[in-house]
């Protein structure tokens, strides 16, 4: 009886530890990976951009990243509480107006923010490119997380070809987009 009880306790302990390892593995595979993506992109490995589907900030339904396949996409993560993000928004809008007829899409992703504050900012700047809302920051996490702003450029084949952390100047936007438009 004693030996059986001991064996059962051992099996229970092993099962508990295995379960906890399973949970850890699930967390790593489902919520992590952003840092790895940024590392690959910075090494020029052109990783596939993680797909996402988020609600549009203007309430006009949802937007899928994969719906922009065959276009160059500039994804700009921002928040209304982030001053550099707000400073670069008019520059992004200006650049978008120049590039939109050349098969280029700009996509703003408002992350870890109040949607009402973000809407106010979008109205103030007069942003005409689509902006989606990632309040919980789950998509941001898959793209490396904080700090903001961070901007990624995705080529026509859906690969991350360039990125920049921090505030964008007009020359930065041109460099990022022109680089992706150049034939490989």
């Amino acid at each position: 009886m004693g030996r059986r009880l001991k064996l059962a306790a051992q099996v229970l302990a092993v099962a508990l530890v295995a379960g906890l390892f399973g949970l850890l593995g699930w967390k790593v595979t489902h919520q992590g990976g952003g840092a790895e993506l940024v590392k690959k992109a910075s090494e020029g490995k052109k990783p596939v951009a993680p797909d996402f589907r988020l609600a549009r900030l203007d309430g006009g339904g949802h937007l899928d990243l994969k719906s922009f396949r065959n276009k160059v996409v500039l994804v700009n993560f921002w928040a209304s509480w982030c001053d550099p993000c707000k400073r670069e928004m008019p520059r992004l809008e200006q650049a978008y107006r120049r590039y939109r007829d050349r098969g280029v899409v700009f996509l703003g992703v408002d992350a870890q923010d109040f949607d009402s504050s973000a809407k106010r900012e979008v109205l103030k700047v007069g942003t005409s490119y689509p902006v989606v809302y990632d309040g919980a920051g789950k998509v941001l996490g898959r793209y490396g997380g904080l700090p903001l702003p961070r901007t990624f450029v995705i080529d026509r084949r859906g690969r991350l070809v360039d990125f920049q952390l921090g505030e964008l100047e007009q020359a930065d936007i041109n460099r990022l987009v022109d680089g992706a438009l150049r034939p490989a």
Partner: protein
Amino acid sequence: MRAVLLVAVVAALLAPAAALASQQHPTQNELESEIMCPVCGTTLDQSDSAVAQDMKMFIAHSIAAGDTKSQIEDALVAQFGEAVLAAPPKHGFNLIAWLLPLIGLLVAAPIVGWAAWRWSRARDTGPPVPPSGLDPDIERRIDRELARYETS
């Protein structure tokens, strides 16, 4: 003993009333200590970041509008996700975080009790310990030497 019992009964009666009052009329400090700043990894009361300031303002406006604690928490969860709560919610998958320590305690207590019982029984029924660990020859020699010392 009676006084302790009385205090316990009064505390038990007052606890739900206090919880209800906190639910109906939450305070700014209380909520700031229970809500996380999503960008700094601390609770709001320990952060001065821009987003924390926005959230504190939201809480102040919500309290002024007469919102309950759970309404304010739900609104913040809807905006920032469940990670904004300093303690995990007591439902769904997060319930594990609350139940696991309790289950661990319930499982561990009988095991520890049983092990302690077995250990104490093993001590009771163990072989008799000799009154002295010394060899009888050596003991006799010590006695002789002591006797000689006392007589000299």
